[in-house]
């Protein structure tokens, strides 16, 4: 049984925008799956359907054998605890401390009153500091999140994801708001997480990153899968199919 099984998944944004069109694929544990495609091809929608930040219109998503699409709110919370997410715009709580941002990764484990009062257990704080060390910014723990640079904010995002100790990491264009050098560092962290046996599903724009890090690539166009295979298998012909004729030169940058 694959870790993630997606069958006939469709998403229609009212009134009639078909973002995902009957998509099916499976992801094995430990894969580094890269989803590629133009803006509006359905990458973000696909990733957000997996943890139901967006409600799918049709189809089924099975994570470790549990159906996600019909899960009750309690079951869904349990599933979300296992699936961490990293965002293009980092999505940190800007006015809160970096440490608090990392700690939110563990909210699912915290009782109602403790979380309302913001009383995180000491060992949880310790773990949060460790995760910040893992991403190389232990000294930033007590700064406000919006004081950090883009690259540092994305590291906090990754630390928050690590805090969940997830089985699957979703990364929605994690490096699109960053410069190339910082992008490399962030991708290295994702690769490291992947090396520890965690599945990574990410959407990327640059083909060289896809080839360097991905173990598998899925190409989306108009909400349909147009490529599924090894990243090295994307030749110029395939590339045009995924990105369209007009996007010919994109992979050089």
């Amino acid at each position, binding site marked *: 049984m694959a870790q993630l099984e997606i069958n006939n998944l469709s998403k229609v944004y009212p009134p009639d925008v078909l973002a995902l069109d009957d998509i099916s694929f499976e992801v094995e544990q430990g894969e580094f799956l890269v989803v590629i495609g133009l803006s509006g091809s359905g990458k973000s929608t696909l990733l957000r359907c997996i943890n139901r*930040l967006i409600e799918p219109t049709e189809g089924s998503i099975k994570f470790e054998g549990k159906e996600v699409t019909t899960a009750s709110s309690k079951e869904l*919370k349990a599933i979300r605890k296992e699936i961490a997410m990293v965002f293009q715009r*980092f999505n940190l*709580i800007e*006015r809160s401390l970096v440490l608090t941002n990392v700690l939110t990764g*563990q909210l699912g484990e915290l009782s*109602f009153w403790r979380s*309302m009062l913001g009383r995180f257990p000491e060992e949880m704080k310790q773990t949060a500091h460790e995760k910040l060390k893992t991403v190389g910014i232990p000294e930033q723990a007590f700064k406000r999140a919006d004081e950090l640079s883009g690259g540092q904010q994305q590291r906090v995002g990754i630390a928050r994801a690590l805090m969940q100790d997830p089985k699957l990491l979703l990364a929605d264009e994690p490096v699109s708001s960053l410069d190339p050098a910082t992008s490399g560092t962030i991708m290295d962290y994702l690769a490291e997480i992947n090396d520890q046996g965690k599945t990574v599903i990410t959407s990327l724009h640059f083909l060289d990153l896809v080839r360097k890090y991905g173990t598998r690539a899925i190409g989306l166009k108009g909400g349909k899968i147009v490529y599924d295979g090894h990243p090295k298998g994307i030749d110029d012909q395939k590339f045009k199919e995924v990105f369209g004729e007009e996007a010919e030169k994109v992979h050089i940058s």
Partner: protein
Amino acid sequence: MKKPKRFTFPDLAEGIKPLLLDWLIWGYLAYTVIFLLDSYWYTQYVDWYGSLTLEPWGWALTVLGTLGCALASERFGISVGLKTIKGKERAPRKTWALTNWGITTVVLIVLTFWVGWLTTDMELGIITRRASKTSHLWYGLSHPDFTHLMNIDPELNDTILGSLVDTLFMAYLATLLGGVLAAPLGFLGARNIMGGSLFRKTIFYVTRAFFNVVRSVESLLWAIVFAIWVGWGPAAGTFALLIHSMAALAKLFSEQVESIKKGPIEAVQATGASFWQIVRYGAVPQVIPQYTAFLLYRLDINVRMATVIALVGGGGIGRFFFYYKSQLDWNQVGAVTIVIATVVWLLDYISGKAREKIV
């Protein structure tokens, strides 16, 4: 044989709203024109007609006439209604007066100003002509009598400073309690939080309706209600300020909640957090600074309101103001005015500085 062309209203196919708007505009134009005619020429004798006056049946004629104008303007492509609501002109030829925003706006503004000037009996000359009547007032204000600043006035059984303290506490209690009540209402009245299920939407609309109604009644009117309800005195004033503060703050808060960024909410949601955890960690940190700023601003407003609420039995320093005024004791009115002005200015300054720091 050619069929006679049937007279239709093709424009009604565009819906009733543009027509109603056109009718409204034409009706308003007719109203202003009739008002001005009435006020300037009502008594004019017209040679061949007699006294120019609007017959009772004239109103019906006007209503029908303006409807005709509205229909005609839709037909000839000068409909403001179609342009506003449907975003198009039926016959996009040359822009003509009524469809030209600039001209229409200027005409309506000028006509309204003219009518308003006559309605409110405005006259600039009166300012200078009757200036001498205020001399004793200015004299009193510039020669304030601070006798009762710290000495009890037996008539009111309090000192000016003592009642000032009352006033400040009234404003403080009202702001704090109002703010505490408004915070949850702000969330319940925010479209983005309460979207989704029918149950949540119902709560949203009920909450919105509640604070819109409460807010539209001024604090001064609430004070009348509470002066009857709990009796004259500072408690009535506090209740009045409280309920209005609560509604006004809830409105501001809910708008603040509606403008929060979705990203952090998504991020907290994705960790498997519960609804209240999402609110606490995704939404609240985003609105706290604005909440605090609104509270400070409201405290400012409440202190100002608390000084006049005595007029209808709300207690506080206003009692001295209205009492001395009724005694025509302008020197003491001057003293009270100076105390009020100083406190309001001080608070305005402090809360302004504090808000700058927060936001």
